C-alpha cells in the first residue's frame, strides 16, 4: 500500500504546488465576493439629482412636491449610501414658455430633468417626468412617490380630511421573509435563501466537475505517455487508480478547506465587512449555516466526487486522446448538469417531488442534495437514504470503473466499442 501513498503524494503535491491551484484558490472567492459586493455597490448608485418642477398645478401641490423631494432623510434611517438626494427649483410659468430652455439646460447638464405638473393633475392623476435617463427605477419611484403624496394631500384637503391621519390609516403592510428550520425560526430573506441554495449547489457541481476532469487528464497523461506501463510493473492498477483519485480529492478538500476558513473569517467580521463594502446590514447572514447541514453537504460532495472521479478515470483509460475524451465527457457530465438546469425548480420547492426524486438518484443527488440542504430542512431519513444509495453506487461504480481502468490504461489501438468494453469487464 506504500505505493498508493507515493501516487497520492505525487498527485497531491504536483497540484498544490502548481500556480493554477494558487490562482484558483485565491481568485474564486474574490470572484464570488465581487458577485456579492458589486451589485450591492452598483445597485442604484446614489448621488444627487437636480430637478426643475414646472408647476401649473393648484396652489400648494408644487411646493409640497419640492418639499418632499428635498426633505432630509428621517432620523434613524439606515445610513444608506444608495439613497438619492434631490435639489428642486419650482417655476410657475406654463410649460410651453420654459420647455425649450429646460431642454437646453438638461442638454448642457445643468439639471437632470424636469417634472411637469399640469393644471388638472389633481383630477386626472397625470404628471410628466422628463430626464436624460428615465430608466433609473429608484429615481423615478421617488419622484412618483413625492408627486402622488402631494396630489393625495391636496385631494384629502379638498375632501376635508387630515392628510397625516389618512396616511396612517392606509399605511402599506411590509412583508418580511424568513425561513423556518428544525431549530426554529431563522433569518434570511427569500432571495438570500435562493442564492445560498444556488451557490452551494453550484460549488459542489463545479468542484466535482473540475476535479473529476483532473482525474481524467491525469489518467490520460499516463496512458498516452506509456507511463502507466512502467507504473503497473510496480503496483496494481487498482491501487494506482485509488491513489490518484484520493490525491486529486485531497487537493479539492484542501481548496474547499481554505475557502471555508476564508468564509469563517468573513462571517466573524461580517459587521465590519458589510459596513466597509456598503452592503446592507445582514447581507452576509446567509452564510450562517448549521453545522449538521455543512457536514451533510460535505458528505455529498465527497461521495459525489468519488463517484464521478471513478467514472472519469474509466473514461480516461478507455480513450486515447483529449479529443476523444471530449466526445464522451458529455455523457458523464449529463447527470451532474440536470440539477443545475433545474436549479429554480429545486431551490424554490426543495421539498417537492422533483427535488426529492433527484435527491435520491445517486448520480444527481450530490448537487441536488447540496441545493436542498442549503435551502430547506430536508427530512433526515431522506438524507440518510440518499447518502446510503450514493455510497452503494460509489462502490459499484468504482468496481466496474476499476476493471475498465485496469485494462484500458495498458490498451493500445483504437477506442474500444461497447462490446469490447464488455469484454474488458469479463477479462479483468
Amino acid at each position, binding site marked *: 500500500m506504500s505505493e498508493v501513498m507515493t501516487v497520492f503524494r505525487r498527485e497531491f503535491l504536483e497540484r498544490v504546488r502548481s500556480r493554477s491551484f494558487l490562482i484558483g484558490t485565491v481568485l474564486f472567492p474574490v470572484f464570488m465576493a465581487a458577485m456579492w459586493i458589486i451589485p450591492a455597490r452598483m445597485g442604484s448608485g446614489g448621488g444627487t439629482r437636480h430637478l426643475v418642477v414646472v408647476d401649473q398645478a393648484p396652489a400648494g401641490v408644487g411646493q409640497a412636491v419640492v418639499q418632499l423631494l428635498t426633505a432630509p432623510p428621517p432620523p434613524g434611517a439606515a445610513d444608506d449610501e444608495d439613497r438619492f438626494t434631490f435639489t428642486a427649483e419650482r417655476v410657475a410659468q406654463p410649460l410651453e414658455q420654459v420647455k425649450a430652455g429646460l431642454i437646453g439646460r438638461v442638454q448642457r447638464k445643468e439639471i437632470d430633468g424636469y417634472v411637469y405638473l399640469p393644471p388638472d393633475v389633481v383630477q386626472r392623476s397625470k404628471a410628466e417626468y422628463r430626464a436624460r435617463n428615465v430608466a433609473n427605477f429608484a429615481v423615478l419611484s421617488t419622484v412618483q412617490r413625492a408627486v402622488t403624496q402631494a396630489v393625495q394631500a391636496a385631494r384629502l384637503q379638498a375632501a376635508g380630511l387630515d392628510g397625516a391621519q389618512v396616511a396612517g390609516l392606509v399605511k402599506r403592510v411590509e412583508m418580511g421573509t424568513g425561513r423556518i428550520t428544525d431549530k426554529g425560526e431563522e433569518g434570511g430573506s427569500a432571495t438570500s435563501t435562493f442564492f445560498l441554495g444556488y451557490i452551494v449547489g453550484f460549488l459542489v457541481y463545479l468542484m466535482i466537475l473540475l476535479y473529476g476532469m483532473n482525474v481524467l487528464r491525469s489518467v490520460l497523461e499516463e496512458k498516452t505517455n506509456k507511463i502507466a506501463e512502467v507504473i503497473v510493473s510496480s503496483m496494481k492498477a487498482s491501487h494506482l487508480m485509488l491513489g490518484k483519485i484520493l490525491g486529486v480529492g485531497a487537493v479539492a478538500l484542501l481548496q474547499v478547506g481554505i475557502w471555508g476558513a476564508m468564509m469563517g473569517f468573513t462571517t466573524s467580521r461580517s459587521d465590519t465587512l458589510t459596513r466597509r463594502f456598503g452592503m446592507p446590514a445582514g447581507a452576509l447572514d446567509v452564510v450562517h449555516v448549521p453545522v449538521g447541514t455543512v457536514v451533510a453537504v460535505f458528505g455529498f460532495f465527497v461521495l459525489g466526487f468519488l463517484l464521478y472521479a471513478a467514472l472519469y478515470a474509466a473514461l480516461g483509460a478507455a480513450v486515447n486522446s483529449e479529443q476523444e475524451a471530449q466526445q464522451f465527457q458529455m455523457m458523464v457530465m449529463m447527470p451532474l448538469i440536470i440539477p443545475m438546469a433545474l436549479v429554480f425548480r429545486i431551490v424554490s420547492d426543495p421539498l417537492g417531488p422533483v427535488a426529492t426524486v433527484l435527491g435520491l438518484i445517486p448520480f444527481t443527488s450530490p448537487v441536488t442534495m447540496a441545493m436542498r440542504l442549503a435551502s430547506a430542512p430536508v427530512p433526515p431519513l431522506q438524507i440518510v437514504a440518499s447518502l446510503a444509495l450514493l455510497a452503494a453506487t460509489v462502490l459499484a461504480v468504482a468496481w466496474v470503473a476499476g476493471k475498465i481502468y485496469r485494462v484500458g490504461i495498458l490498451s493500445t489501438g483504437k477506442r474500444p466499442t461497447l462490446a469490447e468494453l464488455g469484454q*474488458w469487464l469479463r477479462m479483468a
Partner: protein
Amino acid sequence: MNQALTLEGVSKRYSGHTAVDDLSLEVPAGTIYGILGPNGAGKSTTLRMVMNIIARDAGRISLLGGDPAADPKILRRVGFLPEERGVYRKMKVTDVIVFFAELKGIDRRKARTDADAWLERMGLGDWKQAKVETLSKGMQQKVQFIATVIHDPDLLILDEPQSGLDPVNQEVLRDTMLGARDRGKTVIFSTHNMEQAEQLCDSLCIIAQGKKVLDGHLKDVRRENLGNTWAVEFDDVTDAARAFFARETRFGPVAAHGDGWRIELANGADPRALMAELARLDTPVVRFERVQKSLHEIFIDRVGGAVTPNRRREVAHV
C-alpha cells in the same frame, strides 16, 4: 539460478493474426541479451508479456525465478523502458526520478541522493530542478532511462533503447548497460540495429513474424553461421596473382575485395588445396582466413524473406 528469464512456448494471438508464436528462449543471468528482429516481428509484444502488461495466450514465463503474471512483485526487481517514451512533462526532473524510485520501494532520501548522482553522471546536473517539458527530447530520454535504473534492478528490460539517441548518448547508454552487466545484472534489450547488437550482446535471439529464427551465444551464432567465404591477401599483388584469380574457377566464385580477393568456396572444395595453389605463386600469402559474417549478414540471410512487416490489425486490444 543461472537463467534470468526463460520463455517456453509463449504465444500471443490477436484477432486475425499471431503476434508471438510458440516462442522459447533463455536469457543467462549476468549477460547482455539482444532480441533482434525487423519491425513488427513481435519484439515489443514479447517484452510486454514478460512485464505482465499484456496477458499471454499460452506458454510459461519465468522471470528471476517467478512468474510475473502470478507474482507481480517480482517485477519490482526489473527496470523497464517501454518502446514509446514519456515521463510526466510538468514535473521537475529530480521529482520524476524519485517518484519512480519510491514506487519500487526505495527510500525517498536515498532516491534523492542516487538521482543526483545519476543526473551528474548523465550530464544533466544543471537540470535537476527544471521541468521535464523544458528539456530536449534526448535529455528527456536520459531522465526516463535514469528512472528505469534508479532502483538498481537485477534485470533491465529496454525496448529499443537506442532509438532517438545521438551518438554521444548512445555511447553513454552502452557504457551503462556494460556497467550493469559487470556488476552482475542482466540486461535484455530489443533492437533492429544489428551493429549495436553485435557490439553489446553476449547472447541473442532473432525473431521474425513472431517466430524464433535463431538464438544462442553470439560466438556460437557466428560459428554456426560462418559461411564458406575466404579472404586472400598477398604481400605484393603481382601479375601472376592477378592472372591466377582471373582464370581460377575450380574452387568457386571469386571477387576482388580491397587489396585482395574473396572466394566463396564451393561445396566439397578443400581450402587446403586452394592454399597449396596460392603457395605456388611468386608472392607470399599474408592473409588466408575464413571471413566472419557480420550479424547483419546473418540476419539478412536468415530473415531476408520474412521481413515483410506483419502489423497488427486496428483493434483495441490488450
